[in-house]
């Protein structure tokens, strides 16, 4: 018996346009390309003296962060402001016992204040799906990161970075290195790369940090960094959380760095024009050497700039998809 709601395209409206942005799973290549193209056009806005466009004038965007964040929250705020929206940001601390209630009630309250869009970050995988399905079907929900599951705007800003520096995805080798198991960035990147036609996606890490069945994403698994980095065009390093040393996932930061840290020497195994990416915040000397992070091949700071443009693209597209859906539904009623 297959559950009837299993594959409903929750994040698309009846015309296949974005109305929520929860995950990259199930989104067609054309839609991802549209996000990248739209973001490209917004990059030009960021370079102007007056950095605002009126696309979301009169709309209210609520950033609700149940988990700490600086970069993602700030770039979402900037993106909404550049679209001329009113922006509220809430940092909601979670107590583990009443997590669900807090989430439900907080969002119902914000909804009552006539918010048009929620940007949500939450420690539970599936939180954004839950909100889109149960709390506020008429408010556009943008996933700012849910547990280990997805971080789709980060995924798309990484794709924009790759496209702007490498021109496309068709002939690329991309390596994702480090803690794949706990990384929502890695999951979103693997899906995006596959959808956009990247033929060689590699994940590199020790078995304790690789999810069971990671091959399902269409990736090749390497446990040896020197082997995995050979001739790649793009290296995406992931942040290693300190708490991974507990519970026996890794013996020490030092041993991780020796085996999986990106040093100048190791980077030399990749193509000479390879770029180095990192979702930040970086741990110098844990997963990446300072000389690499600050080096000529690093595009880590460009990623931040592109992040604003990608978030502008997603916010504006989801808002118009949501509006179109409401119009369709009204017409159906009449």
């Amino acid at each position: 018996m297959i559950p009837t709601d299993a594959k409903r395209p929750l994040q698309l409206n009846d015309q296949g346009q974005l109305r929520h942005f929860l995950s990259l799973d199930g989104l067609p290549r054309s839609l991802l390309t549209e996000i990248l193209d739209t973001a490209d056009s917004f990059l030009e806005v960021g370079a102007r003296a007056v950095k605002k466009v009126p696309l979301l004038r009169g709309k209210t965007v609520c950033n609700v962060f149940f988990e700490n964040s600086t970069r993602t929250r700030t770039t979402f705020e900037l993106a909404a402001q550049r679209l001329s929206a009113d922006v509220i940001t809430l940092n909601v601390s979670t107590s583990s016992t009443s997590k669900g209630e807090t989430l439900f009630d907080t969002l119902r309250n914000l909804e009552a204040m006539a918010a048009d869009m929620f940007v949500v970050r939450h420690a539970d995988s599936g939180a954004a799906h839950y909100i889109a399905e149960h709390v506020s079907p008429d408010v556009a929900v943008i996933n700012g990161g849910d547990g280990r599951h997805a971080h789709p705007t980060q995924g798309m800003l990484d794709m924009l970075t790759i496209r702007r520096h490498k021109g496309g995805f068709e002939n690329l080798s991309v390596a994702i290195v480090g803690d794949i198991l706990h990384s929502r960035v890695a999951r979103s990147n693997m899906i995006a790369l596959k959808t956009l036609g990247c033929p060689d996606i590699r994940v590199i890490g020790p078995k304790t940090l690789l999810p069971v069945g990671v091959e399902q994403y269409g990736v090749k698994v390497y446990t040896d960094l020197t082997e995995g980095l050979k001739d790649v065009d793009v290296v995406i390093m992931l942040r290693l959380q300190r708490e991974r040393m507990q519970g026996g996932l890794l013996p020490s930061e030092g041993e991780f760095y020796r085996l999986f840290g990106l040093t100048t020497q190791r980077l030399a195994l990749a193509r000479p024009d390879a770029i180095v990416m990192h979702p930040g915040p970086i741990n110098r000397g844990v997963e990446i050497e300072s000389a690499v992070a600050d080096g000529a091949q690093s595009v880590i700071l460009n990623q931040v700039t592109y992040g604003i443009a990608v978030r502008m693209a997603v916010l504006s597209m989801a808002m118009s998809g949501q509006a179109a859906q409401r119009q369709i539904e009204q017409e159906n009623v009449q």
Partner: protein
Amino acid sequence: MSLSIIGARLIDPASGLDQLSDLHVENGKVLAIGAAPAGFKASREVAAQGLVAAPGLVDLNVALREPGYSRKGTIASETRAAAAGGVTSLCCPPLTRPVLDTSAVAELILDRARDAGHCKVFPIGALSKGLEGEQLAELVALRDAGCVAFGNGLNSFANTRTLCRALEYAATFDLTVIFNSQDRDLAAGGLAHEGPTASFLGLAGIPETAETVALARDLLLVEQSGVRAHFSQLTTARGAEMIAQAQARGLPVTADVALYQLILTDEALTGFSSLYHVQPPLRTRADRDGLRDAVKAGVIQAISSHHQPHERDAKQAPFGATEPGISSVELLLPLALTLVEEGLLDLPTLLARLTSGPANALRLAAGELMAGGAADLVLFDPTASTVAGEQWHSRGTNSPFMGHCLPGAVRYTVVDGRISHEA
């Protein structure tokens, strides 16, 4: 009250009976199967042509939620739901508040169940005080108060020596111990079967070995202590194989499986619906098929509902923050009939797994039809259908099957000759 059931297909797996026959009930007992004794005139006659009459179902795992969690369900509401599912006898686990580790709690449950009168209730006592796995509960006192077996739920014993002693103590008095084999450390923090689906959804995994490692240990301890053991809530094909191997080498162990484990797989989690959040978790298609084979072969003798009703709020959160469990007893018979519909089991075999199988596993006086025995029956129409949720008695509406059209419809449930459910 006396009752005559006329023209039903009578199936009694315990005796192998499967024939069109009448059945007569007087003073709570089966008076006769076949022709009525001379001069007998029932006060009520049920025209049962086209219906199947079988022993009332025996469900080894129904959380009644009382005492302690009456917002989720009460003894009255959940036994009423069980009657609607065709159940006449059920076991409730010790996961109450306070824990069922004293005679007082057992007596409270039995009193309220008797008052409600919908089903016979057989409590499972806690094996250790507070289910903490450290000190033994007063097993003999609990037995005398009516507990039919003892278990520790998913709270496994951290200390193997303490568990070993608990088993030896239980063996001394020929008590049955129920195992929910799951290694605490391997399962810690897990939300779903460790596999591609959980990886894709970013949900922390519970590996197959959480079950099999604990099961291996438990089987060896059972063998050494000689305790009567029943393994509850198997979820893996490998686990079912281990039970089969133990039985093959002569260990008299029995096992049950939750009905939903024979139907759903972890793929249902795609979409993050908290209705599929259960513990132990839904496993893979291969596991489901292995469990089905074990049910068919009789390695697993019992199918239970693993009924866990919840209030709405308990499921109203992102997946990981919700409480596990499905409200399932009310659909026990129609949902089980999907296994017949799919051709996995014939009807008498299915009924064996729902009546005599579970009754024998815990030595309950239930699950069979014979003259002079208790008149605990279910009458159902195998050609009708049930729309799940159209009628609902359980306090918990947390069922992923709501709205599904299921085969078969329970018409009458009879407990000690009294009709406890009629539809």
